[in-house]
């Protein structure tokens, strides 16, 4: 083994090199570069005047399309640096709504907020020049965060479920596809028909349906939430708001 390894080494002693080589060759290499960069373009660019061409998927600061956002707060939950907050705004067409505000000084440009956004309202923009004189300039409120959308700015991450992979399927699903979406499950025994989940759901995927039973104590009909899984965006807000913890997320696996 050792012999074999020894044979493979490419170490050449300095004594084997002729003086011509170790003075001439480096100079030739450098001189060639000089000639090449004089004739052709140099490798550098004149930055403030010229700019690099960024690929479409470049992850700069996050941007938002306010009318697309559905207030699901998925971006708030995923952000590893906790730099997104929902703030109330007064929009000329949308009225009084909550929209995300990003503290870009803390943002690490991971692009997760755009990756999880179910409606592609949040996107990554190619903006990277974010210097500011004060820290408060870097607090991007929803209006400042707005950015014009172009195809290619949204982040896709096609996925397949493990069971499909085992079955030999090769078709990937984009986000929001029913095959990979987590759905909400109800434990009807614990439910007290408080309707808080239906009020919280940002997309109106929950309706309270009559079960036909009547509560013997209050003489009112018992209602249970029914989930429209096609509308649901798996934001887990209903799970969080439930006072009796009767909801849970069922993972599509």
């Amino acid at each position, binding site marked *: *083994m050792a012999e074999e*390894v*020894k044979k*493979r*080494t*490419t*170490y*050449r002693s*300095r004594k084997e*090199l002729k003086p011509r*080589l*170790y*003075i001439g*060759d*480096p100079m*030739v*290499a*450098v001189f*060639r*570069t000089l000639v090449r960069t004089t004739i052709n373009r140099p*490798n550098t660019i004149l930055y403030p005047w010229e700019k690099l061409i*960024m*690929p479409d*998927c*470049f*992850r700069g600061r996050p941007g938002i399309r306010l009318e697309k956002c559905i207030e699901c707060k998925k971006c708030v939950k*995923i952000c*590893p640096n906790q730099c997104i907050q929902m703030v109330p705004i007064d929009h000329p067409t949308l009225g009084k709504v909550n929209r995300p505000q990003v503290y870009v000084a803390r943002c*690490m*440009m*991971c*692009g*997760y907020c755009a*990756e999880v956004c179910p409606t592609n309202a949040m996107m*990554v923009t190619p903006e990277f020049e974010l210097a500011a004189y004060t820290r408060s300039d870097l607090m991007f409120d929803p209006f400042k965060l707005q950015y014009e959308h172009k195809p290619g700015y949204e*982040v*896709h*991450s*096609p*996925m*397949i*479920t*493990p069971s499909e*992979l*085992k079955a030999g399927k*090769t*078709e*990937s699903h984009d986000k929001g596809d029913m095959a*990979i979406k987590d759905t909400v499950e109800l434990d009807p025994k614990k439910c007290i028909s408080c309707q808080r989940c239906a009020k919280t759901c940002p997309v109106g995927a929950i309706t309270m349906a009559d079960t036909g039973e009547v509560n013997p104590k209050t003489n009112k009909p018992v209602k249970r939430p029914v989930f429209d899984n096609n509308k649901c965006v798996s934001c887990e807000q209903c799970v969080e708001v439930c006072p009796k913890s009767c909801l849970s*997320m069922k*993972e*599509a*696996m």
Partner: protein
Amino acid sequence: MTEMWMNMGPQHPMTHGLWNLRVKVDGEKITEAQPVIGYLHRGWEKMVEARDFQQIIPMADRLCYGSSMTWSHLYCRTIEELMDVEVPERAQWIRVIVCEMQRIASHLMWLAAVGTDLGSYTIFLYCMRERELFLDQLMNLTGARMTYNYPRIGGVRNDLPENFERDTLRVLNLFEKRLKTEYEALCDKTVSYRMRMENTGYLSKADAMNLGVTGPNMRGSGVDFDIRRDDPYEKYDEVDFEVCVEQEGDSYARYRVRMREMQESCNIIRQAFKKMRPGPVRVKAPRNAPKKTAFAHVEDPRGEGLMYVVGDGTNQPYRLKVRSPIFVSVSAAPVMLIGEKVADVPAIMGSIDMCLGETDR
């Protein structure tokens, strides 16, 4: 008084990052050396305990910006081991490709740093120029220049973009040509480079093994070991490559190992492009980890990176331990430095490729 202690660092041109090397000198000769680290400690391991598994991936990138892809890859592999997730084949090939590109970029950054240590600004500029080609390719693929956030638990984020293969092969052709002509002329054939690298910083085979030095530093001392070959992960068992070993154990041998490794990485990338087939690139990973422990190790550009994770049934790790290669390699500094001259310290410490981000964590 004939001997005195000297502090090199934490702010010194010799240190690549924030660390301190205390050397005891007798005239020009070093009689004792003590590396002091901890200036860059960010509490990474504690920080990740408060985040869920997906959120930690971009944090793993920040362990070392020189080779962020390998660290987030290692993290994802550890969690896949913990959750028993099977990665699709195409994703494994893509991971091989991006990790090898990252290895080349990291080695080039190392050579650039050594170039400045030796006072050769030309080497620095040439290496940075070539590194840019690889960074551009990775940027087209992942959308960021250094902290890629590209591997995911269960695969990678997106498939290769259009023309990625064509552009990468062009970059490889250009890079291989320059590796054989310009780099050889600038380093191997330059007398000042050879004089400062050869016969300095000797680390014997026994010392390298006993101190736990890994990666190119160990292979430069004649130890024939590479995790990619001896404990293959992803698709490394299906590619054909050579483990680069040099016998001399000096700074120049460590340099040779890295140069040959870059050439091997080019070969691996070419083979990977030939062997990969279309298919899915990511499987859905479960949210919660089972109550067990897992570890994974990969061949980082600097040595063996290892992560050990304890899952407690929630969606956050109970404990995550990182074993970083340079944390161990830097303890070999006294062995390499004693008996050398002060002027050789930058070349020797540069040749082990310091990276403090992953050392102090």
